[in-house]
């Protein structure tokens, strides 16, 4: 039980909080800055690696993920210095995966080789749409042609390449999306992240939507049609959905993201980076200041980027296990779930959801069915009710 995280693995997440421009749909912790002192950031990242390293001595590291913001704005030297320190801190597993999120502009593609040399072996490219008009509507700074050449270059440079698309965009029909997705799967990536456009509060799209200025978004039924078409087309192309929005050739799944979904341990380094850490038999949630300046200053003056860590009790651990694990086609192990709850109430609810075709409990695993995954929020609300 205390070593439960091992079922998920151990990774490091590094947050680079800067972008060249803020996309109107994005609610991530990203900022636009005129100038960035990369050496100052380097010192802070390295200090944080040292700090969390001393707390996790002897562990074997499975993955590193550079997320953002736009990590492809980092100098390759900075990435190299960070990875060097990481390798000096932990032993790495045989399948060590280092992912970096990249935007497909030509400037950023020019750094690909440098990242490769620094130790990055997987990139996830934010292509978002295969149609120039929609790219502009999404506030992206690249064209389809640029994206395609960046992708082609990445395929030459890195072992593994994934790219993102956003669907259920304004005025996008099911037929449009089917055509675009067929084109995407023909590009021979081994991994695709396909996200339904979500209108988040506090974004430009959120404001526009609230004012009724974002017409043409699909209603529930057409969104459902697009989601199911996505599953079908990817499956047929040999890229089955292994998670709600992620599709991969078997073996090409994102190892780092699987740590999240399997509730492993991950260290969050950088402004606004969250972590989960098992220490002294307890599981903790860690957090850092969201603002880049505040984080830098805290690391420099107090020697830690962390704000108060919170212990996660057994019921909350179970909530997280189900919330994350049921996103996976493989679901979660029943034994892992049962260790943490008052069994009867949850089992009753699981049975009920099984009866209406939302959950499956074969082979000692708890899985959401294909229909269940499409309405996972409702499934989770029910389960949450039974746990808390």
């Amino acid at each position, binding site marked *: 039980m205390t070593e439960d995280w091992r079922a998920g693995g151990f990774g490091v997440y590094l947050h680079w909080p800067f972008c060249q421009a803020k996309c109107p749909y994005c609610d*991530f912790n990203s900022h636009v800055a005129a100038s960035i002192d990369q050496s100052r950031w380097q010192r802070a990242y390295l200090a944080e690696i040292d700090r969390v390293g001393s707390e996790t001595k002897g562990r074997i590291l499975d993955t590193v993920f550079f997320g953002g913001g736009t990590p492809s704005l980092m100098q390759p030297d900075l990435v190299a210095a960070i990875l060097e320190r990481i390798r000096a801190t932990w032993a790495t597993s045989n399948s060590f995966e280092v992912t970096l999120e990249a935007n497909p502009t030509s400037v950023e593609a020019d750094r690909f080789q440098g990242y490769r040399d620094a130790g990055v072996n997987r990139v996830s490219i934010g292509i978002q749409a295969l149609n120039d008009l929609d790219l502009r509507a999404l506030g992206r700074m690249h064209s389809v042609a640029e994206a395609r050449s960046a992708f082609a270059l990445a395929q030459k440079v890195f072992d593994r390449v994934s790219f993102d698309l956003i669907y259920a965009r304004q005025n996008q029909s099911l037929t449009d999306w089917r055509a675009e997705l067929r084109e995407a799967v023909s590009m021979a990536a081994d991994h695709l992240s396909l996200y339904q456009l979500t209108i988040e509060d506090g974004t430009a799209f959120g404001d526009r939507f609230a004012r009724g200025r974002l017409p043409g978004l699909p209603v529930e039924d057409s969104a459902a049609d697009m989601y199911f078409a996505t599953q079908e087309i990817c499956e047929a192309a040999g890229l089955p959905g292994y998670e709600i929005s992620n599709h991969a050739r078997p073996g090409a799944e994102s190892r780092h993201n699987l740590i999240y979904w399997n509730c492993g341990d991950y260290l*969050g380094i950088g402004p*606004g980076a969250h972590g989960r850490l098992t220490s002294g038999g307890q599981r903790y949630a860690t957090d850092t200041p969201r603002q880049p300046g505040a984080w830098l200053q805290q690391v420099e003056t107090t020697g830690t980027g962390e704000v108060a860590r919170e212990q996660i009790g057994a019921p909350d651990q179970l909530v997280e296990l189900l919330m994350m694990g049921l996103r996976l086609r493989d679901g979660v192990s029943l034994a892992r779930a049962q260790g943490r709850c008052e069994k009867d109430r949850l089992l009753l609810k699981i049975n009920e959801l099984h009866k209406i075709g939302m959950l499956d409990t074969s082979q000692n695993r708890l899985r959401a069915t294909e229909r269940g995954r499409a*309405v996972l929020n409702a499934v989770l*609300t029910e389960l949450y009710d039974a746990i808390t």
Partner: protein
Amino acid sequence: MTELKNIRNFSIVAHIDHGKSTLADRLIQLTGTVAERDMKAQMLDSMDIERERGITIKANSVRIEYPARDGETYILNLIDTPGHVDFGYEVSRSMRAVEGSLLVVDATQGVEAQTLANVYQAIDADHEIVPVLNKIDLPAAEVDQVKAQIEDVIGIDASQAIEISAKTGIGIPDVLEAIVHRLPAPKGDSAAPLKAMLVDSWYDAYLGVVVLIRVMDGVIRKGDRIKMMKTGAVYGVDKLAVLKPQMVDIKELGPGEIGIFTGSIKQVRDTRVGDTITHEKKPTANALPGFKPAQPVVFCGLFPVDAAEFEDLRDAIEKLALNDASFSYEMETSAALGFGFRCGFLGLLHLEVIRDRLEREYDIDLITTAPSVIYKIHMRDGSEIELHNPADMPDLTHVDHIEEPRIKATILVPDEFLGDVLKLCQDRRGIQLDLTYAGSRAMVVYDLPLNEVVFDFYDRLKSVTKGYASFDYQLIGYREDVLVKMSILVNEEPVDALSMMVHRDRAEARGRMMCEKLKDLIPRHMFKIPIQAAIGGRVIARETIAAMRKDVTAKCYGGDVTRKKKLLEKQKKGKKKMREFGKVAIPQEAFINALKMDS
């Protein structure tokens, strides 16, 4: 004690919005009864709901001192009567306490149905009536036509009508003079044994029950031992005061005077409106005739959305009932809704007012079940049952026939909307009794089943006539008809809160409409939900809510866990605003909205 010849007691008869409260405010202001800085609009409407809706619910009173042009100072007592059809019975009672009425008619609108109902009550009470035309400053005022209408429709002389604008103050001094010179002084004998009428009573958190009285004969003083002749209860007069409109202590009240007393009375239920108050030691020989207590005519169940709030609801209802003897309640258990109360009201507005107060003043979210009237169920064995709740409908094999209450509805409406009004009444199983014209307005009188009126008749009337119709009704008795109990089944389970009695010929249309409404009001679930309307075992209407197909967060990574967990907590709280029926969660507002009819 004031001399009888210097007292005038009166009420104001007016339709909603015709300016009754504004006129009262002006009279209070012009006579300096309330200091300018303490004036607020609608002085006499003390409840928030009264001010907001512009209606008077409880009778209230104010004593005005007026130095008239003849050099004498007069005491004018205004009793403000409720202005809504639900409270018509209270109006008739308070009118017995005064000798005259001002009939206020909006000169831009003319006579309305409620004006009519209330003025007839004033005539019944032998009032001297002074017609007052308000809003004469507005360009749309039609003074001559409205005067003619008063004479045609009501049948009283309008040649001496006073033309005023309560808003600007034009004509207010003439109103005060008319009260003094055209209304009669009260009669009474101060040497006779005490005889006072209990006009109204209300609960005050500091004073206990406050009793509004009108002295007929004799004198009441602070410290007296008085007896309520109907209930036999004896109290000491702890406080004696007049209302200006705030309480001002007074030593004694003589014949013709109006004031309040308190006497450690615990609840309003201990007092009977219309009861005679006399001295314990030297009682009067002739009690006043008294009144029947107002009877609730509309019933519904009130249940807390969150079952854990049942005790809070009980406390709140008990507190409200302290001040409103016309509202009845008893505990009710529903298979689906758990514990709640079956409550009786004077009408739909009364229901809404009580529900509003429970939700607002006591912060309890409520589920209101379908309003019902009292049906008389005649059993095969000759016995008779009063059915207040469709859930209690006995097995049909034992029922011989059912009677339902009918009303006489009077509607005044401009010509152009007459067709729509007739159609509405016809659709609601109405029988036309009369149709006459007064100028460009029609007066229609219908015999209607009360159960067709309690849902949303008034709302529909307002909407088809763009607000130009006025409506009043009185109960006229019971009549046999073909009534059936219609059940609503959600996911194959009957939802007793939605079952209702309905005429057989209307059942199918009604059932179809309810099913269509519920289809939109109940959110999609993970499974499809059949909604059915049924009479006995026979399904008469059916709709299906499709299963939810897509509701999943697109992105959920390490940084999202904490936030998404909070979202689950929020959704759990949102679910508490719904009640579960079997596996289906029905939102609170669905119960009320499902009952609204579109035609």
